[in-house]
């Protein structure tokens, strides 16, 4: 395993230096184009500062930035026991030091990613679409792939590279936008001031580079991330001992036509499958951050004889008809190769509702801090966290039901990471509406109507 990690580290360093060079050149050219001739130096310094700050931020909170950008919310075991179990299983199978934190992203597109600094503080995020569409074996396959990224020390690199790529994308985007609005004027003024044909040429160079930089950065990223995807697949096979789980999960993921609306280029590489399925994106394998999914499926399906790294390498060589080694040597020399297991039987639990959609809706409600109560008449009442009253009259039997405000506040606190201290205050502020003046007061009802007190 060690060589594998070392190799990843070395690759990461080379990649960082190259991406950093792109960033610095971009900074230099933008500075030079704006204020020739000395602006270049200023732009360079500025780019170094931005790079430094972004690197610091991504080291200390890159994971939470990623999770935020993806709109991920943390869930506890209570909210989704099955997902939690699967993640716990993978923690044991991969001997991770800690169970990764579990996040859910609300979107119908099935997808997942892992992030964090190291195995000790890793997080795995899955979409609600994934939970809706996968059976247990498939979910396990996806989670195992993400666990593979954690074990292979990919996550820090992915987070770092994602933020770096993001910086380059943002910088060039800002520059290009600025040029579109004030470009011609600037071009004219710089020409008259410095009489510089040179300035105009510099501007064109800067423009071209601003267009190319994000693409180059993405290609660099791609060069390394492809191998990482294969490696994570191989690790997943080993952890689950069931290649078909991941294979059919990838099949379902690629068959889905849902887009993830909130995704941007910077975090797209994190996901198990590219979340942005723009028209024609499937054809351009060169600019894709992921190896073609059909190829990954084909490799997984032709694994034979065992589920070790060597078996994956053999399947890889067969499908791609190449002798290239996609996995590091040390991995291929492993002793005791694990044997494959058969598919797990579909377990039907007692609480399955007739509609899977309902289960997902309830999951989202739980994540968003809803309280669930069942009246003695059998009516289930699902109450939003901003309900503002401590009891509710059952519309079915007229019975007054107390809302577990304390529990509600506590669960909201847990979900939002507030400590036990904040809980008491939460309860006080949530349970009663205090009139602030002597006269009538009104507040907006959840449905948009204004209610008077």
């Amino acid at each position, binding site marked *: 395993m060690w060589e594998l990690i070392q190799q990843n580290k070395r690759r990461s360093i080379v990649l960082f230096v190259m991406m950093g060079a792109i960033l610095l050149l971009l900074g230099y050219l933008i500075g030079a184009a704006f204020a020739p001739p000395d602006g270049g130096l200023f732009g360079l310094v500025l780019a170094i500062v931005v790079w430094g700050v972004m690197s610091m931020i991504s080291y200390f909170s890159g994971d939470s930035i990623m999770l935020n950008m993806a709109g991920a919310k943390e869930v506890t075991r209570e909210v989704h026991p099955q997902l939690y179990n699967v993640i716990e299983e993978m923690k044991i199978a991969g001997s991770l030091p800690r169970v990764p934190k579990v996040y859910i992203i609300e979107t119908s597109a099935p997808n997942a990613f892992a992030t964090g600094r190291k195995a000790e503080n890793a997080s795995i995020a899955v979409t609600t679409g994934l939970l809706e569409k996968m059976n247990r074996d498939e979910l396990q396959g996806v989670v195992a792939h993400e666990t593979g990224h954690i074990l292979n020390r990919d996550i820090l690199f992915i987070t770092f590279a994602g933020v770096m790529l993001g910086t380059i994308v943002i910088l060039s985007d800002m520059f290009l936008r600025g040029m579109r609005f004030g470009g011609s004027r600037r071009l004219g003024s710089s020409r008259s001031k410095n009489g510089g044909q040179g300035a105009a040429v510099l501007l064109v160079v800067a423009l071209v580079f601003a267009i190319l930089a994000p693409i180059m950065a993405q290609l660099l990223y791609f060069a390394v991330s492809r191998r990482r995807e294969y490696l994570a697949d191989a690790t997943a096979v080993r952890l689950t001992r069931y290649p078909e789980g991941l294979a059919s999960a990838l099949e379902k993921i690629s068959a889905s036509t849902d887009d993830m609306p909130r995704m941007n280029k910077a975090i797209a590489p994190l996901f198990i499958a590219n979340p942005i399925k723009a028209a024609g994106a499937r054809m351009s394998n060169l600019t894709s951050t992921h190896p073609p999914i059909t190829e990954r499926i084909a490799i997984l399906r032709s694994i034979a004889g065992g589920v070790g790294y060597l078996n994956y390498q053999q399947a890889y060589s067969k499908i791609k008809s190449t002798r290239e080694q996609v996995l590091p040597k040390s991995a291929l020399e492993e002793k005791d190769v694990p044997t494959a297991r058969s598919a797990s039987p579909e377990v039907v639990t007692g609480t399955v*509702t*007739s*509609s899977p*959609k*309902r289960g997902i*809706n309830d999951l989202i*409600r739980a994540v968003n801090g809803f309280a669930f109560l069942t009246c003695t008449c*059998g*009516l*289930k*009442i*699902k*109450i*939003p966290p901003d*309900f503002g009253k401590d009891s*509710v*009259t059952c*519309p*079915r*039997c*007229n019975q007054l039901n107390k809302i577990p405000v304390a529990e509600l506040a506590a669960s909201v606190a847990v979900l939002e990471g507030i400590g036990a201290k904040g809980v008491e205050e939460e309860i006080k502020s949530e349970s009663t509406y205090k009139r602030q003046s002597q006269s009538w007061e009104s507040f907006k*009802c*959840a*449905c*948009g*109507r204004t*209610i008077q007190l």
Partner: protein
Amino acid sequence: MVALEFADFEVDTCLDCGGIWLDSGELEMILGQDVPIRVVADSGDVSVSKRKCPVCNKKMSAYATRSPRATEIDVCTTEHGIWFDRGELSTIAESLQEPLRSTVLDQMRAIFTKEF
């Protein structure tokens, strides 16, 4: 809005104003398969509603229906569901054809004893 679930049927309601929100999926569940959302909202005059869809937060379309009484139902433009003000759903249900009429009323009566 709170969500109410009974016997595998779910409906969202505002307990302050008595409004009812029916998801497109829930509507299909009461009306049977493949009933387009606008069967309920009679093809009367359409205007832009003041109310926003609770799912997508965009302004809904207001459908003016005549029979049996003049009512205005708000339907999400991207078919997330229908909003009924207090009493509107029972009015609309009364005007439906027979198998549908009792299906809707029975489902709603199971949850709202006072309203239906």
